[in-house]
């Protein structure tokens, strides 16, 4: 039952926060903070309550599982499960959620109630995505996550917000519909095979299908996930959405929402369709490599600092796609760390960009420059995360990228070598950002105030987290192991042979 609370608490908090704005403008902030903190406590309780994940026969190892009837006539149930993988992602969601509330404290002053309602409902939907073990419920939460985010961008975004919000909505909604068709198709195929109509993940695992059917249904799933991830060439909604969203929106989008795409690939695509996935793996890995390089090239060319960070996300998530389809323990552990590290470092970079915009009223880097002199703390922190994002050893992103590339090398050396080139391009865009923003002759005339205490506290937490991930990631591996074992139950190690052929 705790699992349902995990999802429900932010939703309830959101419902309370909306009308609370009538009472006092700051009330929604406090309510949101309380709801998310409480949720975090629930999660930590769940985690500590079961030091060893329970082994459920035929279902793998789970920290907690919940099954309630929902629409039994259609084989739909309210089924949630928490394993190591979803635990880490929910932790990331709540952590960045709390941070989003804090950083919106001064930035969002209009319609605070509705803002926090949307923020919390997006988070609730995301947590649902990470927990759902019923494919219908999964689709349902996928949509819950989407709509409030649309409002966040459309109402509190920057100058071109309507365009960005509609683009975001169309891309995600369009691909989501294809996924719905694929879910239905899978359920029907399963019914024809076994006679039971169900959306339960565990029952659908191992459904026997014709190779062509399997491939088409899988492609339906993949489309939704690679749009969300995003992989080139489905990424173009992302720079617009990230750039136009308010800071909290960008943090949640980049830090958490993109991970739902990766999570979908991990949890559903490969375990449900192992054969089709192994046939598709070279294509996916190619898309990953293209994403790494293409995203980095575009990031280098941007003048808008948020666009630069957004394209750098495309590059980072290219590594994730590469690692998922390498599908061995090294690469998958790398994917987990990469998701966490990207959430932290990119979140911090968006907060930096937001802080710059708040002070200088522009995101155009050609009007920045030499900020180190006036804003030493903000500049040092911005540079720190730029360096994290170019993959310096000792910081979390390096662990993720290294493990992914090492695992990929074992699955398919050529893709690993091509992906490693992304390390050079990453240096190019990260350092040009530092140069244009913090270094160079001072341009911005008005000496603005440096980061204030709450922001500094947030940044300190993020810095500590990324250093911890970089120097001692073992606890993350240990937590993730059970989750990855659940996934690898379907397809043990490697979607490809060492020479790059599907086995």
């Amino acid at each position, binding site marked *: 039952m705790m699992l349902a609370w995990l999802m429900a608490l932010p939703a309830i908090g959101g419902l309370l926060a909306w009308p609370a704005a009538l009472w006092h403008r700051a009330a929604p902030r406090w309510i949101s903070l309380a709801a998310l903190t409480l949720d975090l406590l629930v999660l930590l309780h769940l985690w500590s309550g079961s030091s060893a994940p329970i082994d459920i026969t035929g279902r793998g190892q789970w920290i907690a599982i919940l099954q309630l009837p929902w629409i039994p006539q259609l084989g739909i149930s309210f089924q949630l499960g928490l394993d190591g993988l979803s635990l880490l992602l929910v932790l990331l969601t709540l952590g960045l959620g709390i941070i989003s509330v804090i950083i919106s404290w001064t930035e969002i002053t209009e319609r605070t109630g509705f803002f926090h309602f949307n923020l919390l409902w997006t988070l609730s939907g995301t947590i649902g995505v990470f927990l759902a073990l019923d494919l219908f419920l999964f689709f349902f939460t996928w949509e819950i996550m989407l709509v409030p985010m649309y409002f966040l961008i459309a109402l509190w975004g920057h100058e071109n917000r309507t365009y960005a919000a509609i683009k975001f909505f169309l891309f995600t909604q369009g691909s989501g519909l294809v996924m719905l068709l694929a879910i239905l198709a899978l359920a029907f195929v399963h019914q024809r095979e076994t006679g039971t109509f169900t959306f339960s993940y565990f029952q659908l695992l191992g459904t026997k299908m014709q190779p062509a059917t399997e491939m088409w249904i899988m492609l339906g799933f993949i489309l939704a996930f690679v749009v969300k991830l995003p992989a080139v060439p489905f990424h173009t909604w992302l720079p617009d959405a990230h750039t136009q969203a308010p800071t909290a929106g960008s943090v949640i989008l980049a830090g958490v929402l993109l991970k739902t795409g990766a999570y979908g690939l991990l949890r559903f695509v490969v375990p449900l369709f192992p054969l089709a996935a192994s046939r598709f793996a070279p294509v996916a890995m190619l898309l990953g490599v293209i994403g790494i390089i293409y995203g980095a090239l575009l990031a280098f060319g941007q003048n808008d600092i948020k666009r630069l960070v957004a394209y750098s996300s495309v590059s980072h998530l290219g590594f994730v796609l590469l690692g998922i389809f390498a599908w061995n323990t090294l690469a998958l552990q790398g994917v987990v760390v990469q998701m966490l590290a990207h959430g932290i470092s990119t979140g911090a970079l968006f907060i930096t960009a937001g802080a710059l915009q708040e002070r200088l009223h522009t995101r155009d880097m050609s009007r920045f420059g030499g900020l180190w002199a006036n804003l030493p703390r903000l500049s040092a922190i911005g540079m720190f995360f730029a360096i994290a994002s170019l993959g310096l050893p000792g910081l979390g992103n390096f662990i993720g990228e290294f493990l992914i590339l090492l695992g990929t*090398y074992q699955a398919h050396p050529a893709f690993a070598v091509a992906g490693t080139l992304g390390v*050079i391009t990453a240096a190019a865009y990260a350092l040009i950002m530092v140069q244009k923003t913090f270094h160079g*002759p001072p341009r911005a005339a008005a000496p603005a105030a440096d980061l204030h205490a709450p922001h500094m506290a947030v940044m300190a937490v993020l810095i500590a987290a990324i250093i911890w991930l970089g120097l001692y*990631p073992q606890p993350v591996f240990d937590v993730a192991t059970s989750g990855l074992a659940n996934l690898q139950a379907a397809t043990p190690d490697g979607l490809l042979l060492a020479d790059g052929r599907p086995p």
Partner: protein
Amino acid sequence: MLHAIWLVPAIPLLGAVILIIGCGRLPSLLVSIIGVGSVALSAIIASFISIGFITTPPPGNAFTIILWHWMAIGSFSPAIGFYLDPLSLIMMLVVTIIGFFILLYSSEFMAGDEGYSRFFAYMNLFVAAMLVLVLARDLLFLYAGWEGVGLCSYLLIGFWYQDPANGLAARKAFIVTRIGDTGLMIGLFLLFTHLGTLEIQPLMLRATQSWPAGSTMPTLAAVLILIGAIGKSAQIPLQTWLPDAMAGPTPVSALIHAATMVTAGVYLIARTHMLFALAPAVQMAVAVIGAATLLVAAFAALNQHDIKRILAYSTISQIGYMFLALGVGAWSAAIFHFMVHAFFKALLFLAAGAITMRLHHEHDIFRMGGLARRLPVAFWSFFIGAASLAALPLITAGFYSKEMILSATWAEGGRIPVLWAAGVITAFLTSLYIFRAVFIVFFGDLKTPVSGHYGPRITLPLIALSLLALIGGFVETPEGLGGITLFSKFLASVFGEAPVVSGSAANLRLLAASLVSLAGAGLAYALYMRSSPRFTAWAATPAVLGWRRFLFTGWGFDRLYNALAVRPFLAIVRVNRNDAVDYVYQIIALTCRMAHQFLHQSQTGRIRWYAGWLAAGSLVTIAISVLQ
């Protein structure tokens, strides 16, 4: 005592962290105490550890300590741990002691700079990263130090960040070396995938056990490691970043060129020498790259007029000697030259800094002159450094290390001693270019007014390094000159016994090489002290001028890379700035909108018009069904 080895990198790291958290608000006295003191403490601990190591060697002449396991995923379990053997011990001593002198010097040199505490934070981080690099037990941890060194070089080259040119030089250094780093990274993937570990010693052992000499795998692995080494050590074709790295404060150059960074590649190859022994073709490539680099860089050095650029090209050239030594299997000669080079190159840079700080940061040697009397400390230290670099016989340390390399190169040379010849020619050129600088800078007329004075924190390091540059070579002398082999004996447990070269032919070559370096100095005297009008006229003829310009730009490598890589990259970025993929979606959106416009026009609201279309449509439908 040996267990305290982790303190050696940890203390400078702690110093850096304190200074960074202090965020520039600490008083500058405290900053210099933390900045210099941490490296001093680290040097003291390193010295005690070394004494302990030498007096009571640990079993196997090596000591390993693991702080914690970085990761443990299946068989992949790299550790945060240190490995101390004679090789890493020498590196550690050089890094900490030379580093200490450079930092002590900086505390005065940088006094009054806005970023005083930032400077020491970066410098401490630099020393810590280099110590991690040389002491790491695992290749992955070594790689962490390797990248850390690259980062610190970026931060320090671009230290004066307000000038965009410095930022450009800093990014160039980082990105060019990172191109090499990717080679090393892929090498790590290959080694782990095929040998199942990244711990250096077992890795080397497994390589020799499972890979036959000359087979594909060790060759590939050695090539990848070599690519990494070339980048960090500024060898052809990745040498272009080093001359521009002068943008940083002078002590930074001293640190980069002497104690850290550029010697990382030499260390890496020496550390993995068993792998290179399995790949003779690659080892030959190391020697050839070294030989080519030392010649190319020496010619370039001969045509510079920025005193720091002369020294920068001379570093590239001298590292070429180390590569040459590595390539011919004279591992301990390479490390010997590394050590001696650290002495005299740190000395030269610090002396150059001592000159420029008194001349309002004038770097052009042609605007100096007559400084020998005005700046005796700087003159004598620069002169001693120059003599050691030029390998003036008997009295300088550089003579002994260069000799060791040349004699080993001869021994490995085969029938045609091309590599040896390159080494000897460069010895001549080295002497010529550095004494050219000495004569132009210190003699003749005074051209720029001198101001200021030196404190003890500048003179003390200069004196100490001068001593080292003179006597540091007596730990290893040729057979004909005493035959002391302290240094190579000490390293024998790492590299095996070095072959002894003796006989009258060896003595004759020794004499020849000594004469060559004296001849270089003599020619410099003839050309630049007593400026002969014929030489000046010859140097100004158009053909010669063209060559000099070409050599001045470092053989046009920058232009080549700009044309081949930088400009195409920028062009692609510029063309695709708005993301070509997005046009596809925009076209889809546009098509929808146009279709909407088209259909929108048909919605006129006139009933007669609708009825007409209805009738027409029905007619067509009926016609089709009838005609079928």
